[in-house]
């Protein structure tokens, strides 16, 4: 089973510079766990105790998983998952 995961610039230090890696799992949570076994520390950048981190966007194909099932969103062979840090800020 292979799910392509596209990695943003800022997280490529975990993947040895790779822009895309492959993983497997039945849900986003399992996929992230699987990636973390090969790219240690990646999971902590994507999730915290409450679930997916607020300012990290994870997409399943063309949809934001926030609007699907979050970490429990099912994934299938052939899907593409994209990670993009939020672009945000402000005077505060």
């Amino acid at each position, binding site marked *: 089973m292979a799910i392509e995961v596209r990695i*943003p*610039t*800022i997280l490529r230090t975990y993947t040895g510079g790779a822009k895309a890696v492959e993983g497997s799992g039945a849900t986003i949570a399992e996929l992230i766990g699987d990636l973390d076994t090969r790219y240690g520390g990646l999971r902590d950048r994507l999730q915290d105790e409450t679930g997916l981190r607020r*300012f990290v*966007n994870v*997409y399943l194909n*063309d949809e*934001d998983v*926030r609007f699907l099932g979050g970490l429990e969103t099912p994934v299938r062979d052939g899907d593409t998952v*994209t990670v*993009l*840090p*939020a*672009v*945000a*800020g*402000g*005077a*505060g």
Partner: protein
Amino acid sequence: MLTLHPALRDKVVAHARADHPDEACGVIAGPAGQDRPERFIPMLNAQRSPTFYEFDSLELLRVWREMDDRDEEPAVIYHSHTATEAYPSRTDISYANEPGAHYVLVSTRDPGEVEFRSFRIVDGTVTEEEVRITDSPPGDPTAPGLE
């Protein structure tokens, strides 16, 4: 140093003024690895706030994919402050996740004169840089953005 065509600077300033008092935000894309901002892409501020901005998550995906397809990078990421100075706040620094980008801050706190400054934000460290407005570098700043 940020080198920018005057037409692009004008577009950023016009966007900031138009959205005041909400913060405006956007990108100027350029060919990957060349540090040449060329293509103006104003973005929706999904927060529509006078003190916070965030690119809409689906627009972010669309624009980042498009840049990837076109072999471009986000050379400039800009946003405006509407009541404070054009300097990165702690929030700006925390969420600066494109180490190669010039972070342009515009302030519209003064209705007469806009402040326009540029910074590098790498690993939590802010370094201000010179802004050189010139129409010398080649490029196509009049190419339509996502307006």
